[in-house]
């Protein structure tokens, strides 16, 4: 933007927005991420898609720290690669601080866990969601995410730790199974954005069964993780199907807290790593 800050009037916001749009239009289109499968998994593909009964997607560090320690056999089934995203520094063994998204098969059965450990920009979130649901056809999806308290423009005086949202299909399946869930719904008028919103929105449009659990990022680490664990336990009781592999005990919460502390770049432990 060409103006003299000492003598000229500051340009109006409209001019600034127009210039940004003009510059952005000249850039290339964003690329879809690549969904890659391990050699052993490729025999399970049907029409190029992986059909699974349960798909669990973790989108925030707190949830990822817990889900990685799920008490079951976890085997890496594949990875989701975002073009122009660096893999420098990725460990040989999966680690919480890696900037990767691994797809993990649970107990060798028809359940898949996606551990999305990198940040997906809002502009690419819908592409990411479409790529995942083109490659994976789940019967039911669980999405775990967190949003900071400042993003909520609601009266949070009752201070629930988690809110829930369901697609129409998930809601009708729950009502058929006559299972109530005590987790409060996200208050009306509050919007979620980013990758969790892209995933749930896509499921709603395509009439898939999906549930989103979004947690607040307030509070200390241990407190937050315990609240996530208890919310998860409440949710699992209300879901149709078998979700025993997601029952997380107190020892998992303690281990997850230690992993988060070790993965945090500001801890003293990292100085001696």
């Amino acid at each position, binding site marked *: 933007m060409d103006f003299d800050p000492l003598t000229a009037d500051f340009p*109006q*916001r*409209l001019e600034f*927005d*127009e210039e*940004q*749009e*003009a*510059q*952005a*239009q*000249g*850039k290339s289109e964003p690329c879809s991420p690549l969904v890659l499968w391990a050699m052993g998994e490729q025999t399970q593909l049907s029409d190029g898609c992986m059909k699974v009964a349960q798909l669990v997607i973790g989108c925030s560090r707190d949830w990822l720290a817990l889900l990685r320690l799920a008490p079951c056999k976890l085997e890496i089934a594949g990875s989701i690669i975002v073009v122009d995203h660096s893999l420098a520094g990725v460990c040989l063994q999966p680690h919480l601080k890696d900037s990767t998204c691994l797809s993990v098969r649970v107990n060798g059965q028809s359940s898949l866990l996606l551990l999305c450990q990198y940040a997906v920009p*809002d*502009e690419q*979130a*819908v*592409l990411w*969601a*479409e790529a995942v649901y083109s490659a994976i056809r789940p019967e039911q999806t669980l999405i775990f995410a967190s949003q900071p308290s400042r993003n909520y*423009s*609601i*009266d*949070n005086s009752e201070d629930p730790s988690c809110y829930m*949202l*369901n*697609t*129409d299909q998930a*809601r009708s399946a729950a009502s058929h199974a006559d299972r109530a869930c005590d987790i409060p*719904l*996200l*208050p*009306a*008028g*509050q*919007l*979620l*954005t*980013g*990758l*969790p*919103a*892209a995933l*749930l*929105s*896509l499921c*709603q*449009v*395509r*009439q898939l069964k999906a549930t*989103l659990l979004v947690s607040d990022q307030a509070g200390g680490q241990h407190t937050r993780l315990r609240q996530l664990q208890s919310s998860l336990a409440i949710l699992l009781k209300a879901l149709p199907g078998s979700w025993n592999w997601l029952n997380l005990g107190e020892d998992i919460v303690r281990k997850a807290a230690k992993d988060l502390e070790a993965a945090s770049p500001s801890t003293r432990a990292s100085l001696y790593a």
Partner: protein
Amino acid sequence: MQLVQIAQQPATLEGKSLVLPAVSVGNVGQLALDLLINTAAAPCTGRLQTTCLLPCIGRGAYDHQPAESLATPLELYIPKVGSVAYLQQRSPAALGQQAVFAKQLAEQLQKLRPEEVVVLASLDAAGRFDHQLSQPPVSFRSSSPELSQRCQALDIPELQAAPASEPAYEDRLLPPWPLMQVCSEKEIPVTTLFTFCSEGDNAPHGVLLANAVHKLLARSGGDQSAEQPSTESCVPHWQPPHAWQQLYGPVQPAF
């Protein structure tokens, strides 16, 4: 862009007018659509999926829908009575995607074949030119002579052109101009109603545009879904959704 119809709903807008917002300053068009849809209790008949819009999700957008029902970025609402349909857009196009989104939307409009398209938009009040300061609050631009006549019969003036020293409105890259340009190229009759505003509490501006579009479409025999006013006044009794209660955050405690 993909339109997913909700079961047992018509897949065409033939014979109907389609009202949609342009995501612009103050979100006035979207607020006006909220009033129109909530007052008409229009059911959601389809959802559109596109990679151009930023993602957002919420629930309980309108009072006539189940409280748990999700609201996605682009949804089509068709009231059971009347010949007006509404397309609500809840999030803006991503940076650099305005032209692509306009093209996709125009192609979708070609498939749906509405009789006419009315876009509700707002312009920055700080960007008004001198000769626009004394204009009435609502103005229009239209690609159809018939729609232009209807607007003028309602004393809605045409939006005057920018001075020669400034970029023309038609060359702008932000909504509603890309959509208007593409619709004109595809010969889709489109009329845009504008109001000037600044960012702030823009609900009154939403009411202004809702009143204007109601008069415009009622005159053509279209919008019969809002509560009919008395003959002396043409101002409908708009019902804002309960979701508007948190529009500007939670109510602060009194001290």
